[in-house]
């Protein structure tokens, strides 16, 4: 893994970690369209229902608002003036409005309910698509993206997106409909007052834009400061014991105070500006209301004959005036959160647009058996595997036994095209041979093994597996034929049994126990509280390093692959456990072609071929005895160590 870590630490990746200001959304409309496209793809019917419901809701509320006018103008005023006490027409009118209201309430209910399915359903699909796509991405993607950033898409970005889909979008939609319909009603009532209201709205929008801009700027600063502080805290908490040992508490506090103060300042400004938005808008709304009342009052009083602008109309207009500023206020409040959601969506779509691993291979690995001296495909597990080779030109299929012969021919490789890390690698592993790689950190040992299973593709040269170019083999079959025990053991949440079964999904319990026994894991598993059914959580955090390695060996053993790649652990586990692990590995290696990144003399000495790497080149190659006889680098390494040890 050492090489991979180097890339992760390389330039350009760490800088993008949390804490940097959120990137500006380049194409907000495009992203919004894409989100809506996503929603429509699966939930077009739901969406139609939601839109209809929002229409009905707005319609009923506008009807209700209009009712104030009718109530005063058509019912109360005539009754006051005529002195009659016939409440029949009023009752009928109220019943009619009640119906509208009922409709509105029902529509709200339906909308909310449908929205749950739509919102959660979209997120579920998005989550699944993200995960599925992520699984298909090449290893390179994981090298160049901080794991924290990937995770943050599943948590933060998805959450802000959920808010946007289930709250902001319907809110905006209903605001837009309200604005349009209220505007229409206002125009009908009085054009001059409408113009006046619009002027006030323009002022409101201008002020909101300013406040939003300022708070937005400070929110970005706050995010950055929060990220800085977060990073610092993380660093200090991880190194807290070192801080203590070095009496560094005072200095740690001083730097913390500085970062803390910066965060406080930007958070204060961001909140103050965004908090100012509400009062500014609502008081501007009130002012607009007052001005309309004054001017409307003047019009209603002076020209009530000519304009037909009644007191009731004024009352309604004023209600409209209020219901006009409200949606505008809401839209401006939603603005920041929508921008945030779009930025998150942008990151998610970038993940989805990432190119998956390609697989142009066509040679397949199949179970085989011999019939009349010919190798044929078997429909059951035979323990023998063959490469199924389909020849397009002659439309024939040939079978070739799988043996585990691997050759490298002039292979060059670099994580980027600019910088090669492996040069002209030539080697040949015959079936059943054990090949050991030795060399210093960064010499390219792990990299070579990552090429065999095509975690990375080579720039030049050829790698052949049983004389087939590995590019022609289907990736999934190629990887199935290779067992890997990595230096960092990764286990999954689940039982011990589940974790071993990971190597062969249809393994029986007996096979699992047999594999565990082979890997020397059986005895410790038996002593676990629930034996093979013990739950492992948090990457097997409740097991020791050695035990985790034993499980990884058992997992590889049950897969029973013909070719094995082993990365011996260097971590300091105690001698007794180490011997058990070593013994498990030895048993696993017997009879298989094995590539081992070796750290132990015994492993190296027993290898059929030792490959000494330095700075991406093979500098020596041969058996232990041959290399010792040559008295070069390997000899130096070996004797240097012997004199130290003995």
């Amino acid at each position: 893994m050492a090489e991979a870590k180097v890339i992760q630490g390389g330039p350009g990746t760490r800088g993008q970690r949390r804490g940097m200001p959120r990137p500006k959304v380049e194409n907000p409309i495009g992203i919004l369209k894409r989100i809506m496209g996503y929603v429509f793809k699966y939930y077009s019917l739901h969406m139609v229902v939601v839109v209809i419901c929002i229409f009905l809701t707005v319609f009923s509320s506008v009807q209700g608002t209009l009712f104030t006018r009718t109530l005063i103008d058509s019912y109360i005023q005539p009754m006051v003036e005529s002195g009659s006490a016939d409440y029949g027409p009023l009752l009928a009118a109220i019943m009619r409005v009640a119906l509208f209201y009922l409709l509105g309430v029902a529509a709200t209910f339906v909308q909310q309910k449908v929205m749950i399915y739509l919102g959660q359903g979209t997120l579920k699909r998005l989550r699944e698509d993200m995960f599925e796509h992520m699984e298909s991405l090449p290893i390179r993607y994981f090298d160049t993206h901080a794991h924290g950033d990937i995770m943050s898409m599943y948590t933060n970005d998805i959450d802000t997106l959920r808010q946007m889909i289930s709250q902001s979008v319907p809110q905006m939609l209903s605001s837009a409909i309200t604005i349009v319909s209220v505007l229409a009603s206002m125009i009908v009532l009085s054009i001059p007052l409408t113009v006046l209201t619009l002027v006030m709205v323009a002022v409101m929008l201008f002020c909101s834009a300013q406040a939003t801009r300022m708070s937005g700027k400070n929110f970005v600063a706050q995010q950055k400061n929060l990220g800085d502080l977060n990073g610092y805290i993380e660093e200090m908490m991880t190194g807290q014991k070192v801080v203590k040992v070095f009496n560094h508490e005072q200095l740690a506090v001083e730097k913390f105070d500085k970062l803390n103060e910066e965060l406080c300042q930007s958070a204060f400004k961001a909140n103050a500006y965004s908090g100012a938005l509400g009062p500014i808008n609502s008081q501007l709304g009130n002012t607009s209301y007052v001005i309309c009342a004054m001017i409307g009052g003047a019009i209603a009083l002076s020209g009530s004959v000519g304009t037909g602008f009644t007191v009731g109309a004024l009352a309604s207009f004023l209600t409209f005036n209020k219901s006009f500023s409200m949606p505008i206020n809401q839209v401006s409040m939603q603005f920041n959160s929508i921008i945030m959601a779009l930025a998150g969506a942008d990151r998610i779509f970038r993940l989805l647009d990432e190119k998956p691993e390609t697989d142009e291979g066509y040679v397949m690995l199949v179970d085989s058996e011999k019939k009349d001296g010919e190798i044929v495909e078997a429909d059951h597990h035979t323990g023998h595997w063959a490469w199924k080779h389909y020849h397009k030109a002659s439309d024939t299929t040939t079978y070739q036994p799988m043996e585990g012969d691997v050759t490298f021919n002039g292979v060059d490789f670099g994580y980027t095209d600019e910088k090669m890390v492996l040069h002209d690698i030539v080697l040949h592993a015959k079936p059943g041979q054990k090949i050991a790689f030795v060399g210093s950190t960064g010499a390219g040992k792990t990299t070579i093994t990552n090429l065999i299973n095509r975690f990375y593709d080579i720039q030049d040269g050829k790698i052949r597996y049983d004389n087939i170019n590995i590019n022609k083999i289907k990736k999934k079959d190629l990887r199935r034929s290779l067992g890997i025990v990595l230096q960092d053991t990764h286990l999954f949440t689940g039982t011990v049994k589940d974790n071993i079964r990971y190597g062969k999904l249809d393994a029986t319990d007996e096979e699992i126990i047999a594999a565990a026994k082979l890997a020397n894991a059986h005895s410790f598993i038996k002593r676990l509280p629930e034996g093979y059914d013990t739950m492992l959580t948090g990457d097997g955090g409740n097991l020791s390093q050695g035990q985790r390695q034993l499980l990884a060996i058992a997992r590889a053993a049950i897969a029973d692959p013909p070719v094995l790649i082993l990365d011996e652990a260097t971590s300091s586990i105690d001698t007794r456990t180490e011997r058990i692990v070593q013994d498990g590995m030895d048993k696993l290696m017997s009879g298989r072609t094995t590539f081992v990144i070796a750290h132990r003399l015994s492993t190296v000495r027993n290898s059929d071929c030792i490959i000494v790497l330095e700075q991406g080149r093979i500098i020596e190659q041969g058996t232990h005895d041959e290399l010792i006889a040559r008295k070069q680098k390997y000899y130096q390494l070996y004797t240097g160590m012997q004199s130290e040890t003995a």
Partner: protein
Amino acid sequence: MLKTLMAQIKEFKLPSIITPICMIGEVICEMVIPVLMAGIVDKGIYGGDMGYIFRVGGMMVVIAVFGLFAGLGGAYFGSKASTGFARNLRKAMFDNIQTFSFSNIDKFSTSGLVTRLTTDVTNIQNAYMMILRMAMRAPSSMIVAMIMSFIISPRLASIYFVAVIFLGIIIGFVMNRATKYFKEVFEKYDLLNESVQENVSAIRVVKAYVREDYENDKFRKAATNIYNMFVKAEMNIVYMSPVMTGTVYACILLISWFGAHMIVAGDLSTGNLMSLLTYCMNILMSLMMLAMIFVMITMASASGKRIAEVIEEKADLVNKENPVMSVPDGSISFDHVNFAYNRTSDEPVLKDINLDIKSGETIGIIGGTGSAKSSLVNLISRLYDVTDGSVRVGGVDVRDYDMQILRDQVSVVLQKNVLFSGTILENLRWGDPNATDEECRRACKMACADEFIERMPDGYDTFIEQGGSNVSGGQRQRLCIARALLKKPRILILDDSTSAVDTATDARIRRAFAEEIPGTTKLIIAQRISSVQDCDRIIVMDDGQISGFDTHEQLIKNNVVYREVYESQTGGANADFDKPQ
């Protein structure tokens, strides 16, 4: 908990008081305006009095301006108070963590502390702002609107009264049910994300075993499960909005109906009817707001509890009164020492340890995992306190020293060592802030770190990334040793600090120690026999006890544990090919 948190408001008491006052001011303005509006309609328009309209209208503008300032004041002081409060909380926690002893640190996980310092504080900050701005506003808005309605017409206002009680009950009921469901969902949601995390970090395993489809199936099942749970939880609150609007509508209709009767009877003016309808929204919205505040406080209280835990945690190692301020020499003695990490546990980690180490000796310590090697040395610089017996440095019980003096003189290179983001020089100067470049270079030379530092493009000014991720394990260990050397301690402890350094370099470092700092007592914990066999004496630890304390030659002869380790390693199993020079 509340008291602990409140104590951190400190200099932000004034803004914390001003904010609600501002909010009340804003509420009063909002309430007065409809009354004035009613006056305009009634007296101004129907009375045909333009003068009145302008007079009262002017007054309203003045009040709106007043309301604006009250609102802005609320925003300003509210942010000031809440962000300041948050700052103080973070500082209180961080400061207290700095006083923590190792056992305090062990109690909290690193990620737990980070969450407490960030997410939890942000939750409290938001809740505090909400409380300051809304907790006064919402009830006062509701009460004022209610009073106004009662003044206009007690009969009509009683409709609101009934509506408020009705809604209050419904909201309480729904919230109560929903919080339970949501808590459950979010726990499951965390699990889902954990499994994503697992896949991200183990992607090589997934790909190597071609288990993409398997993982996809697993994830799809989990995602579907979450989907169902979310839908179920949200279905609980789906009634809220329709019930709310329905109640508002019902109120409007009832007020209209009865209001119309009263107007016809001459008991109510049309203006007053309009005011009443405005109050309707005010009252019910405030109620909704109150419910939200309630939920927010419930959610924040969990965060508050976690924060209070950190602030209230008492450091369990403190300086004695009138501590000893100098360490006379580097001798170490253990006198019938028992030690357990947890005072109540019956199984001690170290059992009856007796040791005498002379100043300037080089001592090796060897033993299997869990044999308590680290625990043993951690007692010397008083990173933990003994359970029984005493540990003496320079003839003085370590508990009698000033801790800072003691730790300056007993320099430990921890097993889990870290570098901090900053240049190499900055990292080195943790050992001695006043060290000259020359001194730093000398320390690096002793630790065999000079060779690779000088090969780096920026040499000693090379920037170390967080956690030292841009240097290899062996390089990191050597830098940590150099850093510890700069303290010029009387006692130097290396806790398995050369495990990633190749044997030849390891030997060179030990040789340098012998030549350059002969007077310093050196304790070296190692897995490799080769790292300790030249030591003056070697302590063999076995299961919390000293199984042998003698020279290499004697131990080979007399100590079974030692001989076993020795034989297994010289059998050629443990030499290290990884980092040759």
